[in-house]
């Protein structure tokens, strides 16, 4: 039935279009081709002008209307140090391109209008003008040079590894179809070794339990960050490519199976602070459910979010994790409340190589420096990372990235 309707509509469209075409053809024959052409020049050149004016108004107007969603404006100001620099660069580019956009669109449709064909008019024979051409080669070249210099400066700042003297935290993120596992290194500050061959439902990261550094590592179902402290995210994927995307912090980096990557940044606003800022904007002063006056305001429920930005399969659109930025004290309290994955899920089960043995979590990780279990676990990149010792900050730390 629907197919028939669609077919009927199509046939109707064909007939209408053909009839319109024939009428216009007949009119052309009666009035003469040249007449028609001049008429067409008259109307279409004016249409062009109208289009140009409306188009420019619409593009500038819509940009102003949506400015609260644009980088560096309104409530969506970057919540990280490097994000502010990035937003500045965006605005600088917007400034230059905006000027060029408006001027060239005006010239295009203005020239088309002004030099429309009219009876008895002859075009000029101008083939080139070297001086003019040199000028309009040089100007874009200079503008591009400015953008390259500022752009690369910003880029190099962003891509710095951790500040070796600074006080930073590290979190390891593992992406899989379709979710994230966050791992905090625990009291020893060291991530335990991993071997992808040992991944099971019980051991989702393939942690090598013989490695005592693993014993205090924690898996969390949200990311909690202390405000104003540098954080280094070590990124990896278990199956296919994913991308670690934190829109509010202007952070994006692919997670690549077999190739660790990282991203370092410093969040500058706690979730609470960000909510307070949002509360100033009309867009967020509405109820979450417009029909329910008791539901919370949009700004009250705001959360930083982690999304996947690299197509990874049918559940790509659902890889969400909440990121909370909190004050240092709250972070410490939260961290203390987390328990080690080993202790909660592995300890004294059949998977525990130390089953029945007495071990002490905190001290054991210290003792591992001279431990003899090390050799058994040289299966993954994490051993190399670990061997370099935490916080050395050398550029070669994640060799695949910065060598």
């Amino acid at each position, binding site marked *: 039935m629907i197919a028939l309707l669609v077919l009927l509509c199509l046939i109707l469209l064909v007939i209408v279009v053909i009839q319109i075409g024939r009428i216009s053809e007949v009119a052309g024959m009666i009035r003469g081709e040249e007449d028609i052409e001049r008429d067409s020049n008259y109307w279409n050149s004016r249409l062009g002008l109208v289009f140009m004016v409306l188009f420019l108004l619409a593009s500038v107007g819509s940009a102003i209307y949506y400015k609260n969603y644009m980088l560096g404006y309104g409530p969506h100001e970057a919540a990280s140090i490097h994000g502010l620099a990035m937003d500045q660069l965006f605005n600088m580019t917007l400034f230059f391109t905006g000027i060029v956009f408006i001027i060239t669109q005006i010239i295009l449709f203005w020239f088309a209008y002004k030099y429309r064909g009219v009876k008895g008019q002859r075009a000029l024979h101008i083939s080139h003008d070297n001086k003019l051409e040199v000028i309009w080669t040089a100007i874009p070249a200079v503008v591009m040079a400015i953008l390259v210099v500022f752009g690369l400066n910003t880029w190099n700042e962003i891509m710095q590894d951790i500040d070796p003297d600074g006080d930073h935290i590290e979190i390891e993120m593992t992406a899989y179809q379709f979710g994230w596992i966050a791992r905090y290194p625990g009291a020893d500050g060291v991530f335990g070794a991993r071997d992808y061959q040992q991944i099971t439902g019980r051991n989702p990261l393939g942690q090598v339990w013989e490695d005592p550094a693993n014993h205090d590592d924690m898996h969390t179902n949200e990311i909690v960050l202390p405000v104003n402290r540098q954080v280094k995210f070590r990124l990896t994927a278990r199956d296919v490519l994913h991308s670690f995307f934190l829109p509010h912090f202007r952070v994006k980096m692919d997670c690549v199976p077999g190739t660790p990557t990282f991203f370092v940044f410093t969040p500058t606003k706690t979730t609470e602070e960000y909510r307070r800022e949002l509360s100033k904007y009309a867009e967020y002063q509405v109820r979450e459910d417009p029909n329910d006056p008791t539901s919370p305001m949009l700004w009250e429920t*705001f959360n930083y979010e982690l999304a996947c930005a690299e197509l990874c399969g049918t559940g790509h659109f659902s890889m969400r994790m909440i990121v909370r930025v909190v004050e240092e004290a709250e972070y410490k309290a939260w961290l203390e409340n987390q328990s080690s994955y080993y202790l909660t899920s592995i300890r004294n089960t059949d998977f525990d190589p130390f089953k029945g043995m007495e071990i002490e979590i905190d001290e054991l990780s210290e003792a591992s420096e001279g431990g003899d279990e090390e050799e058994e676990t040289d299966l993954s990149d994490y051993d190399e990372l670990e061997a370099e010792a935490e916080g050395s900050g050398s550029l070669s730390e994640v060799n695949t990235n910065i060598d």
Partner: protein
Amino acid sequence: MAQTQVAVQDVTDQLIEKYGYDDHFHDHHDGDKYQSNFITHYVFSMDHKMIAKQFLITGMFWAFIGGLLSLVFRLQLGFPAEDMAWLKPFFGKWIVLNDAGVGTLSPEFYYAMVTMHGTILVFFVLTAGLSGTFSNLLIPLQIGARDMASPFLNMLSYWFFFLAGAVLFFSLFLSTGAFSGGWVAYPPLSALPQAASGSGAGMTLWLLSLTLFVVSVLLGGINYVSTILNMRTKGLSMWRLPLTIWAFLVTAIIGLLSFPVLVSGFLLLFFDRSVGTSFYLSEIYIGGQALDHVGGSPILYQHLFWFLGHPEVYIIILPAMGIVSEVLAIHSRKPIFGYKAMVFSILAIGFLSFLVWAHHMFVSGINPYMAMIFVLFTLIIAVPSAVKVFNWLATLYGGSIRFNSANLFAIGFVSMFISGGLTGIFLGNSAIDIQLHDTYFVVAHFHIVMGVAAFFGLFAGVYHWFPKMYGRFMNEFLGKVHFWFTLIGAYLIFWPMHYLGIAGVPRRYYSFDNFESFAHFGGMNQFITIAAVLVFIVQLIFVINFFYSIWYGRKVKVKNPWGATTLEWTTPIKPGHGNWPGKIPTIHRWSYDYSKDGRDFISQIEPLSEEEKKTAHH
């Protein structure tokens, strides 16, 4: 007017007779041998003009399919809560009905549609349909050759393209679905059948189809290059070529250099899929199983892919630029402004297109220091592109512009190219790209600058050279309706996407409901979907106009209806095999003598006057 046209026509014949070069082509009756019956004339044709039409009509078929697929996924994005049960008769099991009988589009199918839309539009429509059509039609006609260097390879080129299309079309009907990993087909998603149902047989057929397609491009490209370099008629030096030919030449060279790299990437991917190698795979745990692959890198594939992938966007846009340069000049009755600068910018764009591929990979895990060189070269490309825009604007200056459909689309092209090109400056800067990469900003950028703009070039070319292809005009009124609605509609579709992208909304999302940050744009997505449906319907006007005009369009009564200087308009209204019935014309001047010395135009076959010889520098 009609009188003078006839007189001009006679002059053309006289000039060819007087100065032409007699290659005794028609003494051999080759023309008849090549197209003696229906099969050799319409199907396995070796006549470049017929092959051009084959490419064009096949391209239109694929544009229709590709556009239709985009409407399907646009429906999902614009109206995710609506009942889709009415699509069940068309898509069967991919529309999932719940107990209440409300249908939803399955995510697998959504991703397959997105992937097929990209593959079809990039390769089958804008590469084969655009470059295939106009390179084939115009190269021999504009350089004064009887046909391509190898008509047989030319025929094979079309049929490999056809075969590639047939394979891909078949893959749409697989029970596991067509390939669904995005048109870039990044492994491991594309390498592992466990990763997505489309990565099984769908991916195998996708690889096969694209490999056949590359064969087609290479056969065509080698023909275009050798024809342009070797078969130009007497007097046609490189500096006298129309810009169309320059564009086709550089396009073909880029294709010849970059497509083989893509095939090598595909070959390794094929090995990873079927032979158990680990070029792109390492340390993967999927489907409850740890795979044996160790040591490969998915990033290697991205390098190989984008080494083609980036030049590919210039393969798409350069022919459109060439067509637009030609159409703008002819219908403004002016020489193209800064001819040499235009040629050098084509060459510069062609060269630089090989040095920018990693700007697609700034956040893919490559060494950050690598971004330095790629940011630099990417933004340098903006310079020749800007020069081209300024030269087009200067071409309009002082003209006597005809507002017919062809020229309207050429003007629209310039507008689109400006709008889309400028957003490339944001994305080319790696620092900004961190935020905008893989968001709707990218979707907006490339759809405007290489999707819509290339389509505008294609339309300009079709309206302009339709009289040469079929001996009839397309309907002007319908053409203008088509233009205005497409221009406005295309901006309505893609302009709002910039704002989505700036807000961080990622592309290739089946639904935005899961994220507070992305869920606010329901209204905008609806708006975009409605605009897309309308623009698609407007394209049907073009299709109807096209086919109606083939048989019933207004007849072309003079050889050179646009008053153009180039050689294709010195052939008979419906040129037969071999293009010129007698001698091949020879060339005496460059291709842009418009409004010179008080004359409307001077054909390339007209010898220089005594006056001109004294001052000539062309």
